[in-house]
């Protein structure tokens, strides 16, 4: 009896653990297909890495997860993308609210030309928060969570543009965390950074996954191997293989995955 309950609980937990589910997703830019019939479930509090050669559709895929592709002219998306079971492409979806829940960090750090404090407080202020004490708390917490607080706590009023590249990227992550997202999308977040800054971001990703669900696009195979729990390999708009990272990097099932991750592609 006890065991039955335990089993049922496990099954329920398993069900809860799918944060986003993509079903039969195809994307076209005009007449050019970018993704065809992708099915993929993103687990909650997991780091999911998307890998594949340039033009394989991994960034397009990432951008469908918070409808960033809507901003591109001539884009056509079919299929379903569920966030906690709700289709984010259904008519009437509040896209701004969606992007608050599913935030994105870009390849190049893009701090606003304002102070460190104002960068982090930007989101909460946009959403109507004015209380100074509450803002202070949010800014400190976001900077701490982004592992930047100790480096900037004495110069919160100085310009964000004076930070190093790695610090700027962590500031952008703090800016995102300040609006308390549920899913964090990262599009090659360390490709413009030096190796030490890169490792700091990777450490940060490990800390963040306790609270957030993370999906990361990376060209750095070792990075995917180091930071992710699951890895998806895309090729020519198709999801070739998706599975636990340790399996993908030790014994991938598909020859094309093996060729790509071992650098024998092309």
């Amino acid at each position: 009896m006890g065991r039955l309950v335990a089993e049922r609980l496990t099954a329920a937990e398993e069900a809860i653990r799918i944060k986003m589910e993509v079903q039969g997703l195809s994307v076209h830019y005009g007449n050019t297909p970018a993704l065809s019939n992708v099915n993929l479930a993103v687990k909650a509090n997991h780091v999911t890495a998307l890998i594949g050669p340039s033009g394989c559709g991994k960034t397009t895929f990432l951008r469908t997860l918070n409808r960033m592709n809507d901003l591109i002219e001539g884009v056509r998306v079919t299929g379903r993308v569920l966030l906690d079971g709700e289709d984010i492409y259904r008519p009437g979806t509040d896209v701004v609210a969606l992007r608050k829940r599913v935030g994105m960090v870009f390849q190049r750090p893009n701090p606003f030309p304002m102070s460190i404090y104002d960068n982090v407080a930007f989101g909460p202020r946009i959403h109507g928060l004015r209380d100074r004490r509450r803002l202070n708390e949010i800014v400190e917490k976001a900077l701490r969570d982004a592992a930047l607080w100790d480096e900037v706590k004495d110069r919160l009023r100085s310009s964000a543009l004076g930070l190093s590249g790695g610090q700027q990227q962590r500031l952008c992550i703090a800016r995102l965390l300040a609006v308390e997202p549920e899913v964090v999308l990262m599009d090659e977040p360390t490709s413009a950074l030096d190796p030490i800054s890169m490792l700091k971001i990777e450490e940060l990703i490990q800390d963040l996954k306790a609270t957030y669900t993370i999906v990361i696009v990376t060209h750095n195979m070792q990075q995917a191997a180091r930071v992710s729990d699951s890895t998806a390999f895309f090729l020519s708009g198709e999801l070739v293989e998706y599975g636990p990272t340790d399996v993908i990097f030790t014994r991938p099932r598909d020859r094309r995955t093996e060729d790509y991750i071992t650098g024998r592609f092309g």
Partner: protein
Amino acid sequence: MPTRQSFDKALAELQQDILRMASLVEQNIYNAVQSLVNQNAELAAQVIMGDEDIDRLYWEIENKCVRLIATQQPIARDLRVAITGIKILLSLERMADHAVDIARTTMCLCDRPVIGAMEYIPRMARVVQQMVKDGLDAYVHGDVEKARIMCGMDDQVDYLFAHIFRDLLQAMREDPGVITQAAYLLYVSRYIERIADHATNIGEAVIYLETGEWRELN
């Protein structure tokens, strides 16, 4: 343009190096058993000295493996090539040590009369030498089936080992004058049996290399 050509070349070289060492080890096992059967102290001495070359090769090739891992960060099959390379090297090196053990026994037994219970030892050695050969063939050709069949031969070795053990005990009971020879030969049969175990380790490594799965096969 094809990528990673120099890395592919290094991986192929690694396998060639391992096979070079393997042929020395096979030869030393053969010579060790021959030295025992023919009471040839000179051949035994050759085995013991030859082990230095094998040890040197072992360190040299293992270093290459470590360098490949450090500089190329192999993954998937490439990683398995490097890992199984190290595993197979280690098995070969242990086998070679047992060949030396057998050669040392030859040195001790050279001047003593041969006892009848010894006849099964060369037979057991032949099975084991075949296992080593098949294991290396399986490695060269990526032949999982051959590796599996080879590992199955370990049962024959265990059977012969039990048989030899019994015969030697019997011989000691019947004639305490042969206790020294028989005791040494008990060790020898144990060394040969251990070589078979290392051969099955090679078989397991081949299966891992080809399938990505570790299976205990002995």
